[in-house]
């Protein structure tokens, strides 16, 4: 009984943090602060992954999203000019934004409506970092090696783009 209460409390705290921080991302006066709130969103979602016993996913969430992606966003903010602050949003942008969000919500609702609630829990087959590793290095070796090619391509693309930037 105590155990059940514990994870429900943890869920509500994390869900509240994630939602509150998401709102702050949009409401923050300074876009830089917004990006920092985004870090909190990523961290809370990582916590939710742990509650779902998806430990490996939580580690990736922290490492890649809270770490790398956020660094990219912060860098992008400090590299752009700040003097365009407070520009009016045009009607066209507003309509495009509403349409985009509506489409995204429709897309996300699809799986949510298909699941019979309350959803049954799928028991993990073992420690999940181990399971991921085992299938990654035995059954899925070729996709794994292709990932390194994708990373190589990404890096060459980045080098190519920044090279032009410096050269011009």
């Amino acid at each position, binding site marked *: 009984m105590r*155990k059940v209460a*514990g*994870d429900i409390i*943890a869920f509500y705290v994390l869900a509240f943090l994630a939602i509150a921080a998401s709102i702050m991302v949009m409401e923050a006066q300074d876009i*830089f602060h917004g990006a920092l709130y985004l870090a909190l969103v990523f961290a809370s979602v990582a916590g939710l992954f*742990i*509650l779902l*016993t998806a*430990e*490996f996913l939580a*580690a*990736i969430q922290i*490492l*890649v999203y809270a*770490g*790398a*992606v956020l*660094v*990219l966003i912060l*860098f*992008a903010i*400090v*590299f*752009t*000019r*700040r003097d365009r602050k407070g520009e009016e949003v045009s009607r066209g942008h507003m309509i495009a934004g509403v349409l985009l969000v509506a489409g995204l919500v429709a897309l996300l609702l699809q799986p949510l409506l298909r699941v019979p609630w309350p959803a049954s829990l799928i028991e*993990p087959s073992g*420690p999940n*970092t*181990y399971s*991921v*590793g*085992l299938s*990654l*290095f*035995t059954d899925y*070796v070729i996709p*794994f*090696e292709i*990932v*390194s*090619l994708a*990373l*190589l391509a*990404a*890096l*060459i693309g*980045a*080098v190519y783009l*920044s*090279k032009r*930037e*410096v050269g011009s």
Partner: protein
Amino acid sequence: MVVELYEQYVPVIPFIIIGVLIPAGGMILAWLMRVKNPYPEKLTTYECGEEPIGQAQMQFDVQYYIYALLFVVFDVETVFLYPWAVVFPDIGILAVIEMIIFIAMLVVALIYAWKKGILEWMPLTWREMVIREGGRAR
């Protein structure tokens, strides 16, 4: 009794609480104890006695971005090292070969970036600096 995975993370909770309390507590204590006597001189930005020019939130050089991009690529590589380290004792030499191929591919990427001179810092010319400051180059 089966220990759920998230229960192993319970020790993280006091860790987070202490982590928040140390900086917040320090600031609150300082706020309670300090003498409040602000005057214009004291409210200037501390810059070793110099008057700071412009905003602190200036535009940084875009050259830093390539370092961020390189960081992301190698960060994603690190993600794959975690499951590898866990299963390595059970798979053995095969896993080592697989990982060497994987890392070799990224070493190629690093050498490419290096050879292209991306890791070299390109100082701005005087003209570019003047333009950046919002002035007109002569």
